[in-house]
C-alpha cells in the first residue's frame, strides 16, 4: 500500500524529524495503551480526523440553493434533488448519509468558512499550518504536541494508529505515541535476548542509530500482542490505495476507528486520538471519486459515533474532521478542482450542539477565485482545547484569544 503525505510532512517541515522522533516519539503496542485502562482522568476525549489532500468543502457541505454554485461548476455541481438537505439551502454530499442522519438528530455541527489569513495552496505547507497552528511561520511543534507538553508529556495521552507520528502530535519536550496497527509477530529464531541486546542504548552512537536501536526495545513490548483489530479485518491492499498524488498510507479509517473505540471502551488514559484518510487531491474527474471517498469517511465515522453513544466513556468523545484546504470555487477543465482555501470543519459528539455555525463564505465575493474565510481555524482549536481537553488555549495557541462558541 502507499505511504502518505504525512511522511512527506515529516521530511518537508522538519516537524518531528530531529527532536521528537529521536527523543520520544515512540511506537507502542496496543497492549501498552490498554494497560492504562482505568487511569483516565475525568474529562473529554478528542478524536481528530485529518483528511489528506484537500477535501473539496463546497461539494461536501453543498450550497445548492446559491445559483453561483451551479454556475461555477458545470459538470461538477450536484442538483438540488441529489443533495441530502440540511437547512438554509445547504445540504450534504450524497456520500454522507450517516452524517445526515446525525445532523437530523442535532448531533453534527458544521462550522463553515474555516481558514486562516494569507492562505497557502501547497498541500505540504498548508497541512503544516493546520497541524502546527502557526499560519505565519509553521514551527516545529504540533498544536496537540504542545498540549501534551502542558499535560505532563506521557506519550500514551495522545496516540495515532498510523505507522509514523503525525506532526500535530509532536511537542517541544514530548511526543505522542504511534501504535502500529498490524500484529507484529516475531520471525522464527528471534529471541527476547536478541531484541533486548539490539535495543540497548550504546554510548556515542549517532541519533539515527540510537533510534534504530530503540525500535528493538519497543518491539519487545509488542511480543505476545493480542490479535488486534487490524489483523481481524484482514489486509486489503486495494481498499486503502488511492490513485492520487497525495494518497494515504494509514490503515483504512474503519480499522483506525475500531482501535480508538476499543481503547476508549477499555478506559485507556488516552485523551487525544489522531486518525486519517487520504486521497482527496482530486484535480480531475472529482465527483465520483470524492463521493466514494466521503462514503468511506461517512460509514465508519457514523458507526463510531453511534457506538460511542452506547457507553459511558464513549459519551465523553468529541470528533473533529478537517482538511488542509478546500478547493477552488470554479471547476477546472478536467472536471476537478484546484487547491483552494477555506472549508468546513465537522464536529460531533459530547456536548456538541448540532447545526450550522460560522458564516458561509460568499461564492461571488472571492479572493482571487477562492473563498474568503469567515472563521479562523484557531477559534475551533481553542474551543477543542478548552472544552474537550480542559486546557488554556492561549498557552498553546501563541496567545490566541477568541474561540468558537455554540450559540
Amino acid at each position: 500500500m502507499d505511504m502518505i503525505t504525512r511522511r512527506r510532512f515529516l521530511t518537508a517541515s522538519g516537524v518531528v524529524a530531529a527532536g521528537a522522533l529521536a527523543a520520544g516519539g515512540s511506537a507502542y503496542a496496543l497492549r501498552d495503551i490498554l494497560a492504562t485502562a482505568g487511569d483516565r482522568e475525568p474529562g473529554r476525549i478528542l478524536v481528530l480526523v485529518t483528511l489528506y489532500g484537500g477535501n473539496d468543502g463546497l461539494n461536501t457541505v453543498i450550497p445548492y440553493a446559491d445559483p453561483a454554485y451551479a454556475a461555477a461548476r458545470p459538470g461538477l455541481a450536484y442538483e438540488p434533488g441529489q443533495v441530502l438537505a440540511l437547512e438554509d439551502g445547504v445540504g450534504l454530499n450524497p456520500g454522507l448519509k450517516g452524517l445526515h442522519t446525525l445532523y437530523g438528530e442535532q448531533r453534527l455541527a458544521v462550522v463553515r468558512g474555516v481558514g486562516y489569513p494569507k492562505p497557502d495552496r501547497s498541500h505540504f505547507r498548508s497541512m503544516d499550518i493546520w497541524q502546527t497552528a502557526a499560519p505565519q511561520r509553521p514551527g516545529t511543534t504540533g498544536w496537540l504536541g504542545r498540549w501534551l507538553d502542558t499535560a505532563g508529556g506521557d506519550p500514551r495521552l495522545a496516540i495515532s494508529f498510523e505507522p509514523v507520528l503525525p506532526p500535530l502530535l509532536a511537542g517541544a519536550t514530548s511526543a505522542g505515541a504511534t501504535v502500529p496497527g498490524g500484529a507484529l509477530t516475531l520471525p522464527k529464531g528471534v529471541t527476547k535476548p536478541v531484541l533486548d541486546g539490539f535495543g540497548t542504548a550504546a554510548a556515542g552512537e549517532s541519533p539515527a542509530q540510537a533510534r534504530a536501536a530503540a525500535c528493538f526495545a519497543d518491539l519487545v513490548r509488542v511480543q505476545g500482542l493480542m490479535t488486534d483489530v487490524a489483523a481481524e479485518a484482514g489486509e486489503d491492499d486495494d481498499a486503502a490505495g488511492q490513485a492520487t498524488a497525495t494518497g494515504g498510507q494509514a490503515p483504512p479509517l474503519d480499522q483506525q476507528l475500531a482501535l480508538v473505540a476499543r481503547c476508549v471502551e477499555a478506559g485507556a488514559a488516552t485523551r487525544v486520538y489522531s486518525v486519517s484518510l487520504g486521497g482527496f487531491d482530486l484535480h480531475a474527474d472529482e465527483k465520483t471519486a470524492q463521493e466514494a471517498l466521503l462514503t468511506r469517511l461517512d460509514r465508519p465515522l457514523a458507526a463510531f459515533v453511534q457506538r460511542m453513544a452506547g457507553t459511558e466513556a464513549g459519551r465523553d468523545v468529541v470528533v473533529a474532521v478537517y482538511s488542509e484546504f478546500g478547493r477552488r470555487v470554479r471547476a477546472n477543465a478536467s472536471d476537478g478542482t484546484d487547491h483552494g482555501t477555506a472549508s468546513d470543519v465537522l464536529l460531533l459528539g459530547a456536548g456538541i450542539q448540532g447545526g450550522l455555525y460560522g458564516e458561509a463564505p460568499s461564492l461571488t465575493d472571492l479572493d482571487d477565485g477562492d473563498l474568503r474565510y469567515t472563521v479562523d481555524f484557531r477559534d475551533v482549536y481553542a474551543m477543542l482545547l478548552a472544552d474537550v481537553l480542559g486546557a488554556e488555549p492561549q498557552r498553546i495557541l501563541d496567545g490566541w484569544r477568541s474561540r468558537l462558541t455554540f450559540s
Partner: protein
Amino acid sequence: MTDRATASHLLRRLTFGPTAAEVDAAARAGIGATLDKVLEPIGRTADLPGLEPGGPPPKGASREEKQKARQAARAQLTTATRWWLARMAAEPGAAEKLTFFWHGHWATSAQKVRSAPLMLAQQQTLRRYGGGPTGPLVRAMLRDPALILWLDGQRNTRRAPNENLARELMELFTLGVGSYGEADVKAGARVLTGWQVDRAAGTAELLPRRHDDAPVTLLGSTGRFDVDSYADLLVRHPAHAPFLAQRLWVRYGSGAAPGPDTAARLIAASRTGTSAMLRALATDPAFAATAGRLVKQPVEWMVGAVRQLRVDVTELPENKQQQILAGLRALGQVPFRPPSVGGWPVGAAWLTTSSARFRLQHGQTLTALAGGAVEELAEAGRDDRVEALARLLVVDGWTDRTAAVLRAAAGEPRRLLALGLASPEYAVH
C-alpha cells in the same frame, strides 16, 4: 578516518552498498580515482526490458478484456521493477543511485500512470540527463508522458488551466516553497497548457488549439513562454541551485540541510552538473562527519544486502523474487510507487517497530539465498566471525551491545548473518 573508512563512507553513500572487495580497491586507488570511477558512467542509458507498448483496452472492450489488460499492465510493472532492482544490484557505480534519487525527486507513481513502459521511459530520461546540468533535464521532464499523466498535465487546457503540474514543478522539483507566488502558479499552468499524451505511442505532443500562448508574467519576466523557456527560467532562478544542493545533501549527506559553506560549494559545482555536485559533496569537509547519521532507505538496505551477499536476483525462482518485492513493500518503499509527489521520507521516519521487525524477517529471507556468503563466514574461525561479518557488510564497527548479540550467534553463521542485516548499525550509513 582511515583510508578504508573514508572509502567505505563514500561508496556507501554514492552507490547502492559497496562490497568489501570494492572498498579494498577504492582504499588502494584513493579518493580521486575512486570518484572518477564511480561517477564516470553517469549519463549512459540502459537497455530497457522489451515491453509491449501500454495502452488502454480498445473502446467497447468487454469486462473480461479490460481485466486482462489490467493484469497485463500489472505484470509489466512487476517485470520493470525487478529489472530495475537487478540493475541497481549489478551496477557498482553511482549512476543507478542517482537515477533513484531523481525518481524520488520527480516522484511519479505507476499507481496513477498505470504504464510500465511510460515509467521506464521517464526513468531513462532521468538516467540520460540526471548527471548533467539541470536545464536539459527540466526541459525533458516537462515533455515526459508519465509526469504529464501523473500531474494532470493532459487535462490542462487553454479553456481552464489545471495547476497541478505547474505548482509541483516549482514547489517540489525546481525552486521550493516561498520562491514563487500564486500568480506564478497560475501563469505557469497557462504556459504548460495543451500537452496531450498518446499512451500507445508513448509520446507527448503539444496541441496548439488547446494551448494558451498569450503573454504572461512569470517569476518576474513578462512575455510568451513555452516549456523550454519556462524550464530555462526555472533553472536560472536564484533559488534553484540552493534548492537542489539542499535536496542532494539531505539524501547523500547528513539527512538535514547543509551548512552555508557546504551549500556554497555545491551550488558552485551545480554549474557543471549534478555529478559535479556529487563530487563536491563527497569531498566536502563536512562529509566525513556525517558517517552513520543517515538512515538507509529500504531500497538502499535491500539492494546493498543483495550486493554484499552476492545474491544474483536474476537467477532467483519466481517465489524468491516475490519475497524480495514483498520485503520492500513491508518496509514501505517500492520503486515506481512513491507515496506522493513529495517522494519518500528521509531519516527517522523509516525507523519504526514495524520496520525493525521486517528487517529481522527479511534478513532471514536474504540469508537463505546467500549460500556463498554464509560459507565465507563459516570459514572464518568462530572467534573471528563477528569481525568478518563487519567486513562483509561494510559496517565500520559494532557497538558493544550489538557485538554481544552477534557473538552469541557466532556458532550459527546463517543466523549471524541475518542478525547482522537487522542490526541497528546496518540500518544506518
